[in-house]
């Protein structure tokens, strides 16, 4: 880890926020192919188990641990009408806040943020809350996502029951 004093931050929080808000809007609008384009080819998309929020989702019985191939498949599936849990699509509205740049090197920056997602489906509202951890790679005056990790601040998925949309 490079200390911030050695490498003064050249990335502004507002640039990162703009990127995260853009990502959030793409998901909320179900523009999932465009969302997928935000990810690098060596990306991971992770959601740890609610009872092991700090564990490696690749080595524990986590909720999501997708590499690029599975992430593509997830998006392909979610666009099909036979993805029954999401047809008709639920409506989500997410607020991303408390954005902090934790570290920055020439190649990547690590960012954390909080999220609140409200999901409406079939007359019911469910709320998902937690923290995002990102590794972002600067690219064309914006960023790409090398790692996205959504750590739920839930002790179990009750009453939410399922995560059938992109969290």
């Amino acid at each position: 880890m490079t200390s911030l004093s050695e490498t003064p931050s050249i990335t502004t929080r507002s640039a990162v926020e703009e990127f995260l808000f853009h990502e959030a809007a793409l998901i909320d609008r179900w523009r999932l192919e465009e969302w997928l384009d935000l990810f690098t080819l060596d990306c991971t998309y992770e959601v740890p188990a609610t009872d092991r929020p700090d564990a490696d989702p690749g080595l524990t019985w986590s909720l999501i641990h997708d590499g690029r191939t599975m992430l593509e498949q997830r998006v392909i599936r979610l666009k099909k009408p036979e993805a029954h849990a999401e047809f008709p699509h639920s409506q989500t509205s997410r607020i991303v806040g408390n954005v902090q740049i934790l570290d920055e090197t020439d190649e990547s920056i690590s960012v954390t943020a909080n999220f609140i997602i409200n999901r409406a489906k079939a007359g019911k509202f469910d709320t998902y809350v937690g923290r995002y951890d990102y590794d972002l790679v600067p690219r064309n005056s914006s960023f790409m996502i090398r790692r996205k990790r959504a750590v739920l601040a839930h002790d179990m998925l009750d009453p939410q029951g399922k995560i059938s949309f992109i969290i």
Partner: protein
Amino acid sequence: MTAEQFVIDDRENNLFRVNREAFTSEDVLQRERKEIFGKTWLYVGHESEIPGKNDFQTRDVGGRPVIFNRDRNGDVRVLLNTCLHRGSSVCRHSSGNAKIFTCFYHGWAYRNSGELVNVPGNEDYKSEPAAVYKGLKSPAQVDSYRGLYFVNFDPDAPDLLTFLGEARYFIDLAADQSPEGVAILEGTHKYSLKANWKLLVENSIDGYHAKSVHHTYFEMMMELGATPPMLGQDTVNGVAPAGMGTEFPNGHATLMYPANGLPLATDSVKRTLAGLRAQAEQAFGENYANAMFGLARNSVFFPSLILIDLSFGLTLRTFYPVSASETLVTGWQIIPKGVDEEFVKYRINNALTFWGPAGLATPDDVEALEQAQKGFGARGEIGWSDVSKGMGKPVPAANDELQMRSWWREWNRRITGEQLPTEGTSFVPFDKQGVDA
């Protein structure tokens, strides 16, 4: 309630129906709490979840809060997590390591083997609480099979091995996958569904819904070069490509079919799997190793322990009702011990694509069950569900419904006392000789 009928078992016309009231009535749930969750063997946890002395996990089992732990001598215990004083939980963590459980309400303290060892203001009691109350209670019976621990709140219930009967061979097929044994991975899937618990029993052993509900999953498998279930060509140990369903006494049932191709398996993963298979062949013979690694299996152990081995992953789930229309599920992943990290990662990645609240299959199952529960609102007009598929066939296929009928007959026997005959014989897909030894 009097003499209502929950199950119609019409052998003449091979029709089997279940009264939808069974899924919606709070009165039925009260009877289930007493006759099923109060009298059958219920799954608590696996020994690998409490590996060391003083390790514990807290669980809700059939509506009772329990502590599943190892005491300071390393003995496995199940303690009812309620203070003898005035009821509060004595342990409020989901897991951890503790020698003493101290109730925070008035400070009564219990050793992790149960004995009450400290009562603040003990001198104010004429009869000492420790002498009067001894210690935390345990369920009437606690027993284990192959590392899986069960409890029974009925002191008169037949023992665990008798209860499991031949169905226990399907636990063996999971437990024997590595000579070092198997373990539960860290991390649990804990989620609720807005549907009756019996709908999840049906769904967990329902091969019929696979094509319609999991269509998108199968498309994905094919895109990644693997054959979806029941679409292969091979017969394994007498089990045809279409698979088969089988029933056992006490409501346990299994459906099985030749295992499919593994999506995205690397050479190293295939080598590890071949190694496990070779070890199993050596220890138990080819026939048993074939059943273990060549067949996929979904089993239900009455009432609500499910073991599913789809060869790309091995999941264990249990669930208990919160109300007639709400169920709390806990799911775990079982992994053979001693395999390398790449294999563990592979199994997790593959299993996660299918199972769990964020998998590409489970949420669609949940959706189906919640929609069914909603549909039961019209039970005044349409009062019965059909579970007849494959009834009367000499060998029901994996996508027939023998498994559910077998389970429902046991449910019916326990709830109404009406004993209905079984349909056929139990089938175990391997030669049992030498396995028992």
